[in-house]
């Protein structure tokens, strides 16, 4: 459980966090989304007891991060953004060291369990310095899981992983999120959509949007976007599509596909398909495009505008 109330952090003259307020329940995966320098890492460092906030309070797993820092740190698993590891240590020894610092009674079994979870058990006896970026990331994650923490705070957990590993780690996080509180940061929107129950969009130290991914998308996307591909010249088909009422902003892309938008209240897709066939063209593909969230996210974080509510 994480409860953050009006969190402020100043680095000298610069204000990195301007009064953040949010909460995360047990069994919830909350995504922190924002551009670089938005304050994601700063917030996470405060929540893990690495540094105190300038003002405001943060309760993690029922303890205050400033006055009961040690209790918080016992209950939190943290994967820092830079994945700091001791390069001259063997993977197993490193995790054993971290497990000993946490006074785990069955340290060696826990280390093996964590390595098993992240799929690194076969590299347990290798030097950390010889690991690839993705493997380091997974060792860092294993370190965060050692003590089966109530709260997991993961700063960009999938960065540097290859596509297969990304899927594995995302599934793992989803699985872990069932009984724990997981707060993760990312700047990949599709990732937030896939694994988070709730997304908090943060920019310049302020929360600019907070909702479930589905609701966010619905709120962000007034219209649905569709891509179609036809056999033959797209330019010949375009006028017929544009002629259909409800079709907006139909354009031909560089690759010869056609894109258009329609309002969710008025699904024009069957009419578009019929129009193309009736005009004697062949329809090869029609699908909705989901990446518009990305564009609107850019919009949101660019000029710091609020969401249409």
């Amino acid at each position: 459980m994480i409860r953050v109330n009006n969190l402020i952090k100043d680095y000298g003259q610069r204000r990195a966090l301007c009064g953040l307020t949010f909460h995360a329940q047990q069994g919830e995966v909350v995504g922190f989304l924002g551009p670089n320098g938005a304050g994601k890492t700063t917030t996470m460092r405060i929540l893990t007891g690495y540094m105190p906030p300038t003002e405001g309070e943060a309760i993690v797993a029922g303890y205050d991060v400033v006055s009961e820092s040690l209790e918080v740190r016992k209950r939190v698993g943290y994967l820092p953004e830079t994945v700091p590891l001791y390069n001259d240590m063997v993977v197993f020894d490193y995790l054993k060291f971290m497990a000993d610092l946490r006074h785990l009674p069955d340290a060696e079994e826990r280390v093996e369990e964590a390595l098993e979870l992240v799929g690194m058990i076969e590299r347990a006896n290798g030097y950390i310095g010889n690991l690839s970026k993705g493997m380091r990331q997974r060792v860092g994650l294993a370190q965060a899981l050692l003590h089966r923490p109530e709260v997991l705070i993961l700063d960009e957990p999938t960065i540097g992983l290859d596509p297969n590993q990304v899927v594995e780690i995302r599934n793992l996080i989803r699985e872990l999120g069932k009984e724990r509180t997981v707060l993760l940061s990312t700047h990949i929107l599709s990732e937030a959509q896939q694994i988070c129950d709730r997304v908090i969009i943060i920019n310049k130290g302020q929360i600019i949007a907070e909702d479930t991914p589905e609701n966010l998308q619905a709120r962000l996307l007034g219209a649905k976007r569709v891509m179609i591909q036809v056999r033959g010249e797209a330019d010949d088909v375009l006028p017929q599509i544009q002629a259909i009422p409800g079709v907006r902003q139909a354009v031909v892309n560089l690759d010869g596909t056609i894109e258009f938008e329609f309002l969710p209240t008025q699904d024009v897709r069957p009419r578009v398909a019929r129009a193309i066939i009736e005009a004697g063209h062949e329809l090869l593909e029609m699908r909705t495009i989901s990446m518009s969230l990305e564009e609107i996210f850019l919009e949101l974080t660019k000029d710091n505008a609020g969401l249409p509510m």
Partner: protein
Amino acid sequence: MRNIWTIAKREYNHFFISPIAYLVAFAILLVLGIIFALVIYSSSQNVFFGSVPDIRPITGSFAFLLVLSTPALTMRLLADENRMGTMELLLTAPVRDIELIVGKWLGSFLFMLTIIAITLVYPIVLNALVRPGIDQGLMITAYLGLILVAASFLSIGVGISALFSNQVAAFFATLAVLITLWWLVGFPANYVQTGADIFRYLDLQTHFYDSLSVGKINLTDLVYFFSLIALGLFVGTLSIDIRRWR
């Protein structure tokens, strides 16, 4: 307490894969070996050190070597954690700042004790060579003195290492402080009217060469060394705290 031991154990083991630690141990043992050979040779020829071989040239030179070698052992301890970002790992683990600092210091101290233990071979050999054997009381206090000097130097080194994220900077800053304690701070005692006692008290050499090294155990000397140890560990803990709040 357990955390201190966990951290100390890791640091101690780390010294054995560190080339610098081997270099320091090698240099100390080489220099002391040469001096030991000279002691044996010259006393057999009745030059330099008199006719009865004495342990003091060994312990005395060792204390001086500590000025140069302890900064090399401690420079990495926290500066490297700061540089590599692993400090974030340690500071978000359930470990108190003081436990971290004391653990680092203890690890380096145990390594230095290992080197000191190896040099015990010289008094043992010397004891076998001379009749009726060397002054064992003097040997014990001299070694106690060495251990105290090493402990205080390492503590200062750890404290200073915590201030930096660059090993070389930590090395030279520690060296500067140790040289000040060893040579410089005693100088004004000869020239100032008031406060001469303070400078004399701060001078580290007097607490070793004039007392423990010659077989005397004074409470003031013990207090002096323990104060230095406490000061170094305090500076280290404080600097971690400052880093947090920055």
